[in-house]
């Protein structure tokens, strides 16, 4: 079975802190994605990566950056956390055809 793991289920940070969210997949997938999910807004794509060291902006990249140094790991970085980044963050991976995505359990981030 495909397994996508995220470093934390719950995280509490203070405004202005630098926050790292880690995602690891064990299926040698080329593509990896970071979404945030907010009530009434569905899932919105922040960034995705289709190869090591490659990244592309999604719909809402502002305030975020990403890093993909190894194929299995995709990190989301909040350079200076703000309260409006309080959200559920979901990581996903897929094979190159991109049809089916496999999701991690999510990280619920609270920024105070």
């Amino acid at each position, binding site marked *: 079975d495909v397994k996508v793991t995220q470093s934390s289920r719950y995280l509490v940070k203070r405004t202005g802190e630098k926050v790292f969210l880690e995602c690891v997949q064990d299926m040698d997938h080329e593509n990896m994605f970071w979404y945030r999910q907010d009530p009434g807004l569905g899932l*919105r794509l922040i960034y*995705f990566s289709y190869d090591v060291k490659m990244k592309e902006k999604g719909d809402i990249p502002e305030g975020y950056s990403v890093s993909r140094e190894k194929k299995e790991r995709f990190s989301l970085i909040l350079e200076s956390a703000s309260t409006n980044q309080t959200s559920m963050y979901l990581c996903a991976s897929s094979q190159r055809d991109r049809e089916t995505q496999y999701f991690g359990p999510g990280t619920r981030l609270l920024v105070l």
Partner: protein
Amino acid sequence: SQQGEEDPQALSIQEGENATMNCSYKTSINNLQWYRQNSGRGLVHLILIRSNEREKHSGRLRVTLDTSKKSSSLLITASRAADTASYFCPQTGANNLFFGTGTRLTVIP
């Protein structure tokens, strides 16, 4: 927008009943997928139907696709309390899946 849109927003049924939820999309597709999300968890892929298919079954799930109407439906038969979740039909874009807000299904024991 490019996202799939699920309808109804919320659905509540008794255990054992069937649940039907619908999906509409705007652009042409090669395939359509359905995902489930249990409360506060990640999404799980349920089923994929290709544009040249009209119906597909997987266990208690039945998906139909009508490309002329740009719509799909997901039927869950003999529902269980464990089926309580949100269900999504994202539209496939060039680089990504576009998710709507889903249908929230509650199955009452």
